[in-house]
């Protein structure tokens, strides 16, 4: 099997793929990117926390018009995963307003996005409707 890398470093691959945030040890604010200090309280200590893989779709848009190279239409959304908001695409669903709805329950899913010249496979993530699983 080809070697795999996650699309972003906050996606943890393995038997139970999940997202991981940097949590401020002082105030509990969560960030998915590298931080110099906490945007909420200014302290500088962080710990890694696993984000729940199931959540509720708080908002979405169906992008029909995007930069060259981005397949359209696709559904971009914000998922509330146990109180932490996560940006991601809604996948495994017809990209139209009849099939995507506010408040729908979704679950993290991962999939290959392609191989590089060394044969390494990059793995992306999205959120799929729970009912369809």
């Amino acid at each position, binding site marked *: 099997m080809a070697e795999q*890398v996650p699309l*972003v470093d906050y996606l943890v691959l393995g038997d139970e793929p999940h997202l991981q945030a940097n949590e401020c040890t002082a105030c509990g604010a969560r960030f998915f990117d590298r931080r110099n200090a906490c945007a909420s309280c200014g302290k500088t200590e962080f710990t890694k926390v696993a984000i729940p893989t199931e959540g509720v779709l708080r*908002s*979405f848009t169906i992008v029909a018009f995007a930069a060259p190279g981005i397949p359209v239409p696709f559904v971009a959304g914000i998922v509330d995963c146990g109180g*932490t908001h996560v940006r*991601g*695409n809604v996948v495994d669903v017809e990209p139209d307003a009849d099939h995507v709805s506010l408040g729908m329950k979704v679950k993290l899913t991962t999939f290959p996005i392609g191989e590089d010249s060394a044969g390494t496979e990059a793995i992306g993530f999205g959120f799929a409707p729970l009912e369809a699983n």
Partner: protein
Amino acid sequence: MASDDIWILGITMTKFGKRPDDDVVDLAAEAALGALADGGVTIQDMGVLAAGNLMGAAAGIGQQLQKQIGQTGIPVYNVANACATGATALRTAIMAVKAGECDMGLAVGVEKLAGAGLLSGGSRKDDADTWTPKGRYGAVAPIDGRIGTEIMPGVFAQVGMEYGYEHGGATFELFARISEKNHSHSTLNPLAAYSKAMTLEQIMGDIMIAYPNTRPMCSANCDGAAAAVVVSDAKLKTLDPDQRRRAVKVSASVLTSDPWDEGCQQLPNVNTLTRRAATTAYEQAGVAPEDLDLVELHDCFATAELVHYDNLQLCAPGEAVPFFESGATWRTGSTPVNVSGGLESKGHPIAATGIANIWEVCHHLRGEAGDRQIEGAKVGLAHVIGLGSACGVHILEKAA
């Protein structure tokens, strides 16, 4: 005795739209000379110049402008603050006058965006030859389109849809009706880039950009400039009666940035900073939302206008949908919003927008708005927001 009030002495906006024969300096000069003439003053009277041109932020539009209208040696502040650039320039001039550094100042915002397309914000590049983690997310490939969207129509679509998630009722048709209102209002504005009414069917049936925003529900990229002359109360008292009569009082001038809250870095929170700016502005002005005779707010997308009804406290919390459905924000309603046509039809030459919306309010307060005059207008509010984020709120009042 003079107070520490600040007044708009002169203000103007250029015709918005396609201006192929004018460069940014031509447009800035047209607006600046227009504002000076409107105030009955000259560049020699100005003690400070604040200028913004977001697309050319490194080029120093202020000094370029001086070369064309007067190199008087005054301090120049070139400002850039996303879509709040114009409001930031105005506020910079206001702060200089308020601080007593000078008694008059000029603020200018200009942009050339005609034909720029709708994809601002998208950052997608080709995939690299090897997957190498880069940047703060350790991304091995571009993420726009793979992890949500970075394009503005999509970001603001989600802002409006999130309001629907929290409060209900925010349907495609509702957002399209907001756009219908603004396009209808624009038919009375000869300076708008687009001044054609559009039916609900036309709006909903137009090209979908990012659901629920179709093309006419997105701000119109265009060329344009706006400029304002501000003056201290003490100086105004020395000017002639006609200048004093047309002066408009700046009852509040507020700029905020977005405080951290959960999720704000996944989807920008344009609500909290707007709510805070409005609250501070109402306190500064001693004005309540129900006192407003008109509001120009930042409808960069139809989905954004809805949330700002709530953020600016024009309605009770969570009640933006029934507030709009009541007809309150049409020009015949209790709180006319975007009688200029708004960014969707008047246009959105970015750095000009935050001064042009103040011009619109002043135009009505002076009783000079012609066919689209809101009769008896005495108090108005102008709002802009730039993602990142920056929010400017100004409250203007007719001279007593």
